[in-house]
């Protein structure tokens, strides 16, 4: 399981990376905004994308739309982990095809729950 973590704050990337390692996901890479994330996604075989919303350069919502618009990446599970907490934004992300949405600050338990739920749903639709 190869996971890409996208956040403009390196501290948050480290936190998520460590939490993922605790959950048994050791294969992670990092990017600091959508512009650097997109080529990584297109060239690497990532299985999961965790992205922040508010980033300079390309935002997380634009990255999500770019992923969904890309034939090769359209099916990639995307979990948004962000401080953006306006209802319109959550609805916007849902409409853009996000698989899960976590508001910061969050706990390790929440991260695990959301990731588990995303995979459960993927398995349910696949099988």
């Amino acid at each position: 399981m190869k996971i890409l973590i996208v956040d403009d704050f390196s501290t948050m990337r480290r936190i998520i990376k460590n939490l993922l390692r605790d959950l048994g996901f050791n294969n992670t890479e990092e990017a600091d905004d959508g512009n650097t994330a997109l080529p990584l996604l297109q060239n690497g075989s990532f299985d999961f994308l965790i992205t922040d919303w508010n980033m300079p350069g390309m935002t997380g919502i634009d990255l999500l739309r770019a992923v969904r618009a890309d034939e090769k990446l359209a099916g990639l599970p995307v979990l948004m982990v962000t401080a953006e907490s306006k209802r319109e934004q959550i609805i916007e992300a849902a409409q853009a095809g996000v698989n899960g949405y976590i508001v910061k600050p969050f706990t390790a338990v929440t991260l695990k729950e959301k990731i588990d739920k995303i995979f459960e749903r993927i398995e349910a639709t696949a099988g």
Partner: protein
Amino acid sequence: MDAAIETDGELLASARALVDELEAGNRAAADKLIDALGKVREQSLFRELGKMTRQLHEALNGFTLDSRVAALAETDIPDARMRLNHVITMTEESAHRTLSAVESTLPVAEQLRSQAGSLGGKWRRFRNKDMTLEEFRAMSQEIEDFLALALEHADRIHGNLSEVMLAQDFQDLTGQIIRRVISLVQEVEERLVELVRLSGGVDNKDAPSKEDAAALARGQGPAVPGVEGAGSTVSGQDEVDDLLSSLGF
């Protein structure tokens, strides 16, 4: 000769006509010409006065009616104050979370150290065959207890370290808030420069337009209690989950 006198040529013609009329003894016609010449002065005076009035009016409008400046003073600056206070609160909470986790880890480490030390001493006596059967039985029990304790304490240390790690999320959240305040300070600076330019007589005001949708797409940053409009921001992960499940998630 009632037509307005505009050009130098017309002025000269009027002056010549006046001399002609006076030489001819036509007093009434001469008076008329003198009136017309006087009006030239008045007209340019009124024109200048009108120009000045308009400039003054525009400057005052620019000064008092720039709604953005008013919004900055009434809303954004107090907002920024609350945001920065929120930053203090968040950094304080994070520091306390970290310190609490460290404080509760230190005695755990100390307990492990002292029990390992005590068991180490006994173990050495056992290896030197300097131990009674009774003592050996007691030590066996102690080792068993210690292994269970080590397991439990390792979990506690792991939990506390995770807490320390998560407490560092303040850097991202406060960073986002501070960035917004920085951009506000920058805007205030630009407005002040504009006001200075305006009072210097150069007026190039451009109506500031703010597109809410575009602002939302850029991102709003972390919710700050008492700053964002209540009701539009979710209050926690549970509300996010409710909202998403209402959308069929």
